[in-house]
């Protein structure tokens, strides 16, 4: 166990693929764009080539509001991997967009004791120039 050296561990960032790039490009413009299947009459997430369940070949990119509600969360008192050691306590959440799909994210700018499931949330966009990527997180919607 002593025969390896610890590499430098930075926070992992998403690397878009040709198929998923429209989602990430939209985040850079402070928009949320996901796929919609007319035959299912449902928005879907994450991006795929064909609609889940039916494999319908009719997915379209559509901009959505980006607003959502808190479906669930947990407070991670320990980093989920050594790469997150510098983050401190993290609020790991599942947010349900108003348009239906759920999204794995973090809740920021709030103390855990002020969270409750079902609360309305607004998007928080953060640019990471080192990864040429914009991350999407959530915070309580102001005025609610």
């Amino acid at each position, binding site marked *: 166990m002593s025969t390896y050296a610890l590499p430098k561990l930075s926070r992992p960032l998403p690397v878009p693929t040709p198929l998923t790039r429209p989602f990430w490009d939209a985040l850079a413009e402070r928009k949320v764009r996901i796929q919609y299947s007319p035959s299912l009459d449902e928005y879907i997430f*994450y991006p795929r080539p064909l609609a889940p369940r039916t494999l319908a070949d009719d997915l379209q990119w559509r901009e959505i509001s980006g607003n959502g509600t808190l479906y669930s969360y*947990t407070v991670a008192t320990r980093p989920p991997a050594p790469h997150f050691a510098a983050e401190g306590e993290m609020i790991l959440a599942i947010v349900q967009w108003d348009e239906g799909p759920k999204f794995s994210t973090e809740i920021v700018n709030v103390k855990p004791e002020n969270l409750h499931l079902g609360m309305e949330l607004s998007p928080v966009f953060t640019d990471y120039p080192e990864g040429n990527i914009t991350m999407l997180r959530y915070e309580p919607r102001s005025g609610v």
Partner: protein
Amino acid sequence: MGLKGQAAILGYCELPPQRKLTREPTFSLEQWARLSKAALDDAGLDATDINGIVTPMIGEAEFFVPSTVTEYLGIDANFAEIVDLGGAGSAAGIWRAAAAVELGLCDAVLVTFPGTHIVPTDERKPFVMDDKMYFGASSNAYGSPQAEFEIPFGNLGQNGPYGQIAKRYGHEFGYDERAMAKIAVDQRTNACATPGAVFHGQPITVNDVLNSPMIADPLHMLEIVMPCQGGAAVVVGNANMAKKSKNRPVWITGFGERVPYKTPTYARDLMTSPMVHAAEQAFSMAGITRTDVDMVSIYDCYSITVLMSLEDAGFAPKGKGMDFVANHDLTFRGDFPMNTAGGQLSFGQSGVAGGMHHVIDGARQIMGRANAAQVSDCNRAFVSGNGGIMSEQTALILQGD
């Protein structure tokens, strides 16, 4: 549909889990051989009786795992299967073995799950900390949905997602943390009657559980499984092998399995686990009801897994699992014996072999070999497996003659 109950568990080997390995480290292939030999000896069968194997992924082979195993043991296998279903893999391997036996492919099948991860290293073959070690069950490969949409947001490992499930459960159905703690307490009582359990001799109380550190709100440390080093093997054989075996045969009369997603974020209804389908199929196949079973062994990586499995397998009404737990004695001497050897929470979780703890718990009881923890007149058992984040689940019905 399904099994006719013509294949039986005839023997097993379960290493006592160790939090810190004191046994000599050996490679997974070596473990495969020794665990298998011990299970065959337990059954009273010969290695030459075996003509099938089921294996999980192992450290020494990324590809061609089954043939690597059959070559290593010298088995001319008619059926060589790898299962990649995490903690559901053990139960999944048992029904696959039973199916191979009932199809006439095999007389006897080894289902062997090495569970000691500390293996020998050499300076020319060092232990490598790669993405697989850091991110575990989540793939960081380019193009992986987990690499792109989960890992960067910290949604990896097990504690966080299981905490999210428990939090949602409380929102929809209410939450009684003392009932949740009682799951761990009753199982610890069972471990204290099971020599070899990692927490043998260490009883706990509800307050101990609630005073243990909060790991992933609302889950405390003592509601979370303890990673250990160990391993397990089970021999499944046909009626002729059962006659040759020295143990009471434990017939596999029903199974069910469902594998709908990887990450719970994408569950259509997170509060309805795959166990609903798996258990219903298992009971239907076996032709028995929930009240017919004498004990249950429920996969227990977390207290919330036990709670929701009890509900979704039909032992407790949906949303009333905490009442059920509070109102029943879950110990081996109780009115609803569950995880009678301590479960993984108190026996220890030996990696992917942890799921086999529940298979062997059920088999041991039906064989009448549980000694101080024996459930009287135990003839029917329900066993569950759970992989990923309640995302791949398997159910078995085991029965004595």
